[in-house]
């Protein structure tokens, strides 16, 4: 494999693009120049740090450190899910539901893929485990966050409908069934869209990265398909779990709608 090495001064040159863009947004009074620059700086710093962590992790390669890394990634994803919701469950439930459903789906799909399909040795080989988990968590996070946000939003918007259905003697699952289905669909749409468009509209980022880094395109494509399928599974099951637990939590033991459990 012959990869042209990138040096830091070459990256600094590409940053001039971002600087030029920031100057343009400033001239156009868009008011986002500052957040653009901060985001660009965060990209550089965060990725450089992750690179260092990964280098160290690959060198050590023990299960403990891989598991610790996985845990940190999971908790950060849980926090992100919580931050992306407009109305969230009080008392740590929002964070807990996001984290638990991502743990159930993303972790089990990752382990399953590593052990049954890719089969590196040892199975937790960080070169495979960490990127796979990262892709899964990143996408599952989007699905879970979208699903939960849609659910809590429609519970607030359609409170009258849910309560009127309860008054007519419907169970809590009947009363919020439409909204649960809508929320699950919302969580699944992005991955369905990106699977449908893969290779036609866009070349997926991971595959592009592999090809740039010197992998033969045929192999990169196989890995991309693997990732797409595992991401679909992880996102789907994660969204199902999150929406199911969250909707249960919106009702109490007497099947009353408990909007007081949502923050505003």
């Amino acid at each position: 494999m012959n990869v042209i090495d990138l040096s830091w001064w070459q990256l600094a040159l590409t940053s001039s693009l971002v600087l030029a863009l920031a100057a343009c947004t400033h001239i156009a009074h868009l008011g986002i120049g500052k957040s653009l620059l901060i985001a660009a700086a965060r990209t550089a710093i965060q990725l450089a740090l992750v690179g260092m962590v990964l280098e160290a992790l690959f060198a050590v390669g023990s299960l403990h450190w891989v598991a610790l890394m996985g845990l940190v990634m999971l908790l950060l994803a849980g926090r992100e899910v919580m931050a992306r919701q407009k109305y969230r469950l009080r008392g740590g439930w929002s964070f807990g539901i996001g984290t638990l459903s991502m743990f159930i789906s993303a972790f089990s799909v990752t382990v399953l893929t590593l052990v049954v399909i890719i089969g590196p040795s040892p199975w937790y080989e960080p070169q495979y485990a960490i990127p796979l988990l990262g892709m899964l968590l990143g996408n599952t996070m989007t699905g879970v966050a979208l699903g939960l946000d849609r659910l809590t939003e429609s519970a607030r918007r359609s409170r009258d409908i849910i309560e009127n259905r309860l008054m007519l003697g419907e169970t809590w699952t009947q009363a919020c069934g439409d909204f649960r289905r809508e929320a699950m669909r919302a969580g699944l749409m992005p991955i369905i869209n990106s699977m449908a468009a893969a290779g036609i509209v866009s070349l997926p980022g991971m595959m592009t990265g592999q090809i740039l880094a010197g992998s033969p395109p045929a192999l990169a494509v196989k890995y991309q398909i693997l990732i797409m399928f595992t991401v679909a599974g992880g996102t789907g099951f994660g969204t199902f779990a999150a929406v199911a637990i969250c909707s249960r939590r919106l009702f109490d033991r007497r099947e009353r709608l408990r909007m007081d459990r949502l923050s505003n």
Partner: protein
Amino acid sequence: MASKLHLNRVAIGALEDINLTLAPGEIVCLSGASGAGKSRLLRAIADLESHGGEIRLGEQEQSSIPGHQWRRAVMMVPAESAWWFDTVGEHLDKPMSKALRTLGFSEETSDWPVARLSSGEKQRLALVRALSREPQVLLLDEPTANLDDETTRRAEEWLQSLIREHHQPVLWVAHREDQIRRVARRHFRIEGSQLVERELRE
């Protein structure tokens, strides 16, 4: 089939120590200033809000059966009804042609899109919808607030005849004195934290 509804030392919001028994087929009217807690009391009886005290239907204690089963028997019709399917008919548990005709509708009303219903139509149809589920107790929150005088009278007579036939106890939140005189066997007014019985003048 028909049972008494008992409220025993019920407390919700500003209301305290509410004791009330509704006999089968009895319409009890409830009035009070806005914000006095009429709707909340109905919600507590329908088990949509937690409350103190005990509520029973016959021998059955509210908390002894699942919430949805209780509400299927003790049914509240809110002041503002909500609609979720496309047509009126999809909301009904069984065809209600006689009820629809009595309230000034026709057979075709079942196919009407709910998006085009006026507030008065919604109010009458919400009553039909609730009664299509054959509840054992009715909790009505200003069920004729959006109706003109003639339609109000028709709805009252229809409800009264149904209640004579099926003997449900009814708790009816009403404002207008003339309506209370026409429909109620007893009338209570919320004053502070208590229900005070009012005399019904002819």
